[in-house]
C-alpha cells in the first residue's frame, strides 16, 4: 500500500467563512478523531489530497509542524456536483490495528465467454475488507479471462493478500458473464395501440361504473 504525503497545518479558526478562506488558499478543512481523544482541526493541502485519492490511497502521512503522522482517510465530503472535495475526516489509527475499508476491485482480462455472445458485468466495484492499516491493498485485481458464459466470480474465490479478510457475503457475485440482453429497439418507442393515453388515476371510479349516477 502506498502512503501519500500530505502537507497540513493546525487549524484554529472554525466556521464557514474561515473554511472558505482556507479553500481559497488551496487548503481543505479536515478533522482528526478517534482513539478516545478530543477531535482536532487541521487544514490539508488540497492538491496533495487529490493526488492521494487519485492513487487510491487509504492512509496519508500528514506533515504538520515538521512532524509526520499516519492517519486513515475515513470520509471525504464533496460539493453538490460531487466534483471538488470540501472537507475530510481523518481517523487516528495504530499501525497494527485492524480497520474496515473499501478496496477497489479491478477486473483484468477479456472473458472467454464474450466470444459466445456473453456480456461481462461487475456487480461489486468496491469490496469491504478488514485488515491491518499497513496491509490495506490499493486495489484487488480479479482475473476474469477464464470466465465462460454463465460463469461468475464469487467473493470466496478472490485471492486476497495475506491478512486481508473480505467482509462481504462469501457467495456474493463480484463479476459474471451472462448472455447479452438483445436491445433491438433503437427507433423511438411508439405508443402501443389500445394503450391508454393517460395514466390511471388511483381511487377514481370510472363514470359509467358510478352507482346511482344520472346521465
Amino acid at each position, binding site marked *: 500500500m502506498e502512503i501519500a504525503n500530505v502537507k497540513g497545518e493546525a487549524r484554529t479558526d472554525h466556521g464557514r467563512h474561515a473554511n472558505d478562506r482556507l479553500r481559497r488558499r488551496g487548503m481543505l478543512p479536515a478533522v482528526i478523531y478517534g482513539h478516545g481523544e478530543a477531535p482536532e482541526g487541521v487544514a490539508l493541502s488540497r492538491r496533495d489530497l487529490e493526488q492521494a485519492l487519485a492513487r487510491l490511497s487509504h492512509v496519508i502521512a500528514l506533515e504538520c509542524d515538521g512532524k509526520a503522522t499516519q492517519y486513515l482517510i475515513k470520509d471525504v465530503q464533496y460539493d453538490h456536483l460531487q466534483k471538488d472535495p470540501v472537507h475530510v475526516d481523518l481517523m487516528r489509527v495504530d499501525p497494527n490495528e485492524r480497520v474496515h475499508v*473499501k478496496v477497489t476491485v479491478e477486473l483484468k482480462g477479456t472473458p472467454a465467454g464474450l466470444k459466445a455472445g456473453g*456480456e461481462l458485468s461487475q456487480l461489486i466495484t468496491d469490496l469491504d475488507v478488514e485488515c491491518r492499516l499497513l496491509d490495506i491493498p490499493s486495489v484487488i485485481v480479479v482475473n476474469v479471462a477464464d470466465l465462460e458464459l454463465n460463469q461468475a466470480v464469487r467473493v470466496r474465490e478472490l485471492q486476497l493478500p495475506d491478512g486481508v479478510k473480505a467482509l462481504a457475503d462469501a457467495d456474493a457475485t463480484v463479476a459474471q458473464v451472462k448472455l447479452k440482453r438483445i436491445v433491438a429497439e433503437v427507433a423511438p418507442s411508439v405508443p402501443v395501440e389500445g394503450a391508454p393515453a393517460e395514466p390511471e*388515476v388511483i381511487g377514481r371510479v370510472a363514470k359509467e361504473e358510478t352507482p346511482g349516477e344520472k346521465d
Partner: protein
Amino acid sequence: MAGNMPKRVKWRKAQKGRIKGNATRGNTVAYGDFGLQSLEPGRVTSRHIEAGRVAATHFLQREGRIYIRIFPHKPITKKPLEVRMGTGKGEVDIWTAEVKPGTVMFEVGGGVSEELAKAALLRVAHKLPVKTRFVARRHGL
C-alpha cells in the same frame, strides 16, 4: 401524448412548483462506469429522455449498457391555442422529470471504454435542455 409516463397517478394534474436547491440523492454514478450529470435545474421531458436513449443506443450499437436514472413523474398542462383565459386548468400536455444540479441522468456501463462512453453521452447531452458534464464512477474509501 408520446413517450414515457407513469402507469398510475394519484392526481391527474400537478401544480407548477419551483426547482430549488441541489441534488442530494441520485448525484453519483451508481450502476454504470460513466454518467451524464446535470449542472443546472430544469425540466427534462419524456421526449428528451427518449431522444437521448435512442442517440446513445444507436451510437453504442450493441456494446455496453445504458442506464436511465430519471423518470418523467410530473405532468405539465397546456391550454389549447386561441383560447380565452379561465374555464379551468388545461389538459396534460407533456410529462417531465424535474432535474436538480448534480443529478446523474444517464449512465453507461458494461465494459465500455471511457472514450466511447464520453462520445455516447455527448450525443445524449445534445438532446437535453440542461447543461451537463461527463462524470466517472468514484471509488469508495
